[in-house]
Every structure is written in C-alpha cells, then in structure tokens.
C-alpha cells in the first residue's frame, strides 16, 4: 500500500512536471509566436475607401498573420486624436492616416518616420512588384520632405465641376471643357429654378477649413489673390481678394442652394445626387458616388475642369495617406501594411470584388492605364488631368512663401483657416459686412504670422 502510494505520488509529480514543461514551452512558443506576429493599431478616416480597406484588411491578416485594430473616425476627430497622440506623447498608434496638409510638418516634427530606409530594405522582387515610381509624381512630392518620402497615398483627388448633361441639353447650354467662373455664373443663373426645387449650382458654405474654405481657397487663387505675400504680410484687403469674396456670395445668393452655411460636402453631395442641383464644384472622388448604383443621377453627370479666372489649373490637390508613427514599435509590420494597401494588387482586389469604379483613385498611373478602370469610371481622364496639373508648389498668380492649393501649408492653418472660414460664413449668411469680415480675417492672419514667427 505504501509502495502504491509512493508510486502514485511519483506519477503525480511526473504529471506536474510534464504539465509545467508543456506550459512553459507553450508560453515561450506563444511569446516567440507573438513576437513575429504583432498587432497593428491603425487610425483612419471614415471615408468610403477606408471603410472598404477595413473590410478587406482580413486578407492582409490572412497573408501575413499580422492582426489589425482599426480606429475609424471622421476627419476632424481623427486629426485631433492623432495630433494628440503624437503631440502629447502617447504614441499608441502604429499607422496614422494623414493628408498632404499634415505630412510636411509631421515629418518636420519627427512625428512620423521616413520611409526611405524601409524602401531601401525591400527585396528587388518586392520593389519591382510594388513599383514605387508608379505613384503619381505631384502627390508623391507633396508627401516628401527633402526628397524623402514620409507617407504613401491611399487615395488622391483634385477638384472639378460636375454638371447635369440632361439639364444642360434641355436648356440648350454647352459646358466648355475649361470654363471660367463668369461662364459658370451665367449657366447657373439660367438653370436656377428654386420654385421647382432645382438650384443652379451647389457650393460649400459650411464653415470649416476643410469645408467651405477648401472650395473657396481655389477661388481665391484663381482670382489672383493670396493669403500672404513673400514677406508673410497678410493680403486680405486687396481688390482681388474682395472680388473673390463678393463673387462667392453673389453666385450662391443668385443661383445657389439656400442655407448655404449649413451645406458642407455631404449636403452638397445629397443635393447633387438627388437631382436638386444642376452643377456642383467639389472633390473628384464624388464622381464615384454620383455614378453609384443607387444614385438618382447615374449616367447623367458630365465633368469639366475647375473654373478659372486669372489662373488656369485651379483644381486642388489632396491625398489621404498612410504614415508610420515615429514611436511605433512595429515599424516593419506597419510598412508591410502600407505597401499592401497601396499596391497594384490591392487595387485589383477592390476592382474585382467591389467594382472598378470604387477602387482608390488618384494614386497610381497604372490605375489610369487599366482598361477595366477606364471603362467603369468615365471620370477617370478628367480626374487624372486635374491631379497632374494641380499647382501644389505655386498655387497663386503672385508668388507666395507657402505651398498648398486649398490651404496654406503651415501648422497654424487649422486654426487660421477655421477662423477665416467662419468669417466667410458670417458674410455669406448676411451677418457681417464684407469689410468687417475681411478686416477680421486680416487680423487673424497677422496674428498667426507674428506668433508663429513667420514675420521676422
């Protein structure tokens, strides 16, 4: 009996040791396993293309074993969260989605890592398949600092004029390929029938540096005005600037949607896609939605270049891009995701599974050479020429010390653009006179130039 007991104790001890060994091995194996398969935290915007990316990211995890956690927010909240994360030193994101506006000063602040070392480390095959030179040059240079690329574009856009071919035909008006704002005004007035629920043109009036200011800034540029001169003196009181402000109000009042100061991108999209507007000047990506399956105006939309006055090529340049936070501990894995989401294969994946009109636009030359894309997206060639011709480096008639078409590429523009956007809204809604609004804008710009150390 005693022997039996000792035997059973021995057995128990052996079982315990075995169990412990297996547990330790499993834990080790788990940690080893975990080390080679990190989880990436990605912050991105809730635009349709990104939502699709989130849905298809499972394919990436399948291929590489790298898991992804998505934080999806609207543009304003996203920008605030990611800026908080890097600016206040939390550093919890691996990949951030930022725009052409943010990339230059994020790079300067060392908030994101240069991608050059990672591109260099790519194997020859991978680099050839990825084909970095396929990325549209104006966008690639907008995302680089001193020649080093800091972010990869996920989708790119410019701005163009959408119009209802059927309404134009019925009224006997022809849209020129490169219209001027005066021509657009005349056409809008002719097609403006508010009692029948049809407005001549939809233009953003919602205050916001990325809302009404984005559209209006291209007008400022093409009217020959500018935010600052080469010595960073604000230029809000010039005749050209006044003319631009007056024109914007005139066209909206005479031929635009009512309640313009509550009309942002989505409201204008709703107006256009429900058939209530004859024209709409806005982002090129809207074409995809307007040609979508449940759009009431599918097949009826024509395209023209951004209207001009004194300066041609007025369309803006923007790309939502993926970058790697400098504090990320998983940069290699993050780079893998970046190159996956911006690869030709990804575009093909979306084209085959979602639809060719829904692939991320405005990033690669090869997309625009793809016959399937050209067949599905009748807006392709106009979009491509708008992006290629956008004057990111020299947006204005007179020289300026800043870059950017629909914004001024200084970090303070988030605040300055917001203030001026509110002044514009106050003027549009009749709450402020033009002179007061311009004076307030001038003061705001002067304050920024001084406090930011731009004016020496």
């Amino acid at each position, binding site marked *: 009996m005693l022997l039996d007991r000792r035997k059973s104790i021995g057995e128990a001890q052996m079982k315990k040791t075995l169990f412990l060994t297996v547990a330790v091995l499993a834990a080790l194996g788990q940690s080893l396993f975990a080390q080679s398969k990190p989880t990436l935290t990605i912050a991105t915007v809730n*635009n*349709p293309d990104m*939502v699709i990316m989130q849905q298809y990211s499972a394919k990436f995890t399948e291929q590489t074993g790298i898991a992804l956690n998505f*934080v999806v*927010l*609207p543009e304003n*909240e996203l920008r605030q969260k990611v800026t908080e994360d890097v600016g206040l030193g939390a550093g919890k994101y691996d990949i951030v989605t930022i725009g052409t506006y943010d990339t230059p000063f994020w790079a300067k602040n060392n908030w994101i890592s240069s991608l050059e070392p990672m591109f260099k480390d790519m194997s020859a095959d991978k680099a050839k398949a990825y084909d970095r030179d396929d990325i549209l040059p104006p966008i690639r240079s907008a995302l680089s600092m001193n020649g080093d690329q800091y972010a990869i574009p996920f989708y790119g856009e410019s701005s163009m004029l959408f119009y209802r071919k059927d309404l134009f035909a019925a009224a006997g008006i022809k849209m020129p390929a490169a219209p001027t704002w005066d021509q657009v005004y005349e056409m809008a007035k002719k097609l403006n029938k508010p009692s029948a629920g049809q407005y001549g043109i939809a233009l953003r009036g919602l205050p916001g540096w990325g809302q009404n200011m984005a559209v209006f800034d291209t007008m400022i540029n093409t009217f020959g005005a500018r935010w600052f001169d080469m010595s960073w003196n604000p230029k809000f009181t010039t005749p050209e600037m006044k003319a631009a402000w007056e024109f914007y109000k005139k066209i909206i009042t005479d031929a635009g949607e009512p309640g313009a100061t509550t009309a942002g991108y989505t409201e204008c*999209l709703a107006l256009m896609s*429900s058939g209530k507007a004859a024209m709409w000047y806005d982002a090129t990506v809207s074409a995809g939605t307007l040609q979508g399956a449940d759009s009431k105006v599918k097949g009826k939309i024509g395209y023209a270049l951004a209207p001009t006055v004194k300066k041609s090529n007025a369309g803006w340049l923007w790309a939502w891009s993926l970058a790697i936070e400098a504090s990320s501990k998983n940069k290699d894995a993050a780079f893998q995701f970046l190159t996956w989401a911006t690869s030709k294969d990804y575009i093909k994946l979306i084209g085959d599974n979602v639809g060719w009109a829904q692939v991320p636009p405005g990033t690669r030359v090869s997309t625009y050479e793809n016959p399937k894309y050209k067949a599905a997206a009748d807006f392709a060639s106009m979009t491509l020429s708008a992006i290629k011709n956008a004057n990111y480096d020299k947006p204005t008639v007179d020289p300026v010390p800043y870059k950017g078409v629909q914004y001024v590429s200084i970090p303070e523009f988030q605040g300055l653009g917001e203030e001026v956007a509110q002044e514009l809204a106050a003027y549009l809604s009749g709450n402020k006179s033009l002179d007061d609004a311009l004076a307030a804008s001038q003061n705001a710009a002067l304050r920024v130039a001084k406090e930011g150390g731009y004016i020496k």
Partner: protein
Amino acid sequence: MIFNVRFRRRALGKLGIVGIWALCLAFFFPILYMVLTSFKHETEAVPPQLFFSPTLENYRTVLGSGILPHILNSMLITVVTMLFCVLLGVPTAYSIVFGKLKKPDSVFFWFLSTTLLPPVSVIIPVFLLFKFMHLLDNRWGMVLIYTGANIPIAVWMIRSFLKDIPRELLEAADIDGATRVRSFFKLILPLARTGIISTALLVFIFVWNEFFFAVNLTYINASTIPVYMASYMTQEGLFWAKLSAISTLTVLPPLVLGWVSHKTLVRGLMMGAVKG
C-alpha cells in the same frame, strides 16, 4: 343641470387628454422622425418623404462592423460607474444632511463647484494625467473619470431626496432606541429609494451618452458606443439613415430603463412615501 355640468367636465377632460397627447407627440416628433429615417434607404432619407419602402439595411450595416466590443464596454463602464456613484454618493449625502459636519453647505458647494469645468477645458490635462498613470484606453480609467465627474450630481440629488424626509420620523426612531445604522437601513433607505433610483438612472444616461472623454481617452480596448457612433456622425457620403439607425439602437437601453424605473417611482410615490 347637474347632468350638463358632468357632461361638460367629461368633454373638457377628453379634449384635454387629446391636447396633452398632441403636445407630447409634437415634442417627441424629432425622435420619431429619426426612428422612421432609420428604416429608409440612404438615398431616400433626406428630402422628407412620407411614403417609402422600409429596409433593414441600415441596421445590418451598423450592427455589422464590430459594434459588439463597444456595446460591452459601454455596458460595463456605465453600470460600474452608476454603482460607484450610488455607493459613494449615498454616504456622502447622508453625512451632509444628517451628519455633524461643521459646514455641510460648504462641503456640498465644493462638490458642486467641481462640476463647473466643462470637459472640453480639461481634456488635455486629463489626457496628460492618464498618460502618466497609464490609464489611457483603459476601462477602469474611464470608470474613474466618469465616477469623479458624476458623484457631485449624485450627491446633490440624493441630498435633496434625503432632505425631504421629515425629521420627526428620525427623532421618533431615535427615541425608540434605534441605532443610526439601523434607522438608516430600515427607515431612511426605503423612503429615499425612489430618489436613489432616479439618481442612478440620471448617472446612467450621462455616462452612456458621454462623447468627448470617450473619443479622446480611448483607442481600441475601452472604446464605447459614442465613439462607434462618431464614425456615423459625418461622412464623405450620405449617412443620415445609418446615423438614425445607430442612434435608435443607442437610445433604447436608457429608454427601457426609464420606462421600467418610472413605474417603480410612481409606485413608490403612490404609497405615500413622501408627504408634503
């Protein structure tokens, strides 16, 4: 003559009921419209249409993309905060009303003054503090901040319900030889029960719907429903039907709780618990 008076009173009564209902419905209309919109196709959502073909596609979309962790986080954080607020608020309010604090009104006022700071003002300091304490994107961090923000409200409301209890009842219990603890559990608590329940409901609503701290202090792990909703509050595409759907779903738990606890409140009050 008596006949006429009775008839007139009844007619006025019926008209009055219709009137009251009309007013309540008018007040409620925006929410009703929101619920209706949640069943419309996105392209039919906006210019108001009376006739539409109902669809569940919005609900399918919003329930689809990973809403479950948000719901669980919201439930956990909200319920725990609510419990903490009650468990900490009741003793505090008791002490202020029945205790022997030197300056009960000052203590009470201090609690109140802590609620004057809008979340917006204090978010960056809180972010920095939480970063320092490693509480970012942490459920217990969220419970901590929500509890701290809502205890003062709980204290105020429970205090006013405790004050309603007539002193004579307590003095009678004291004379009968009851200890403080006993009179608390047997006498005060039942009388203030409905007040405590409505306070708990109030805290529930505040935490359930809290948006600003939730968006800024959470990332993945502690993300609540308002953060999930944020991605439907504006989009580069039509979103109103989807927003209505997620919002209808989010409004349901507080609404159901309000409905349920409202009956308790009415029952309690009808038993003549608090006499004027």
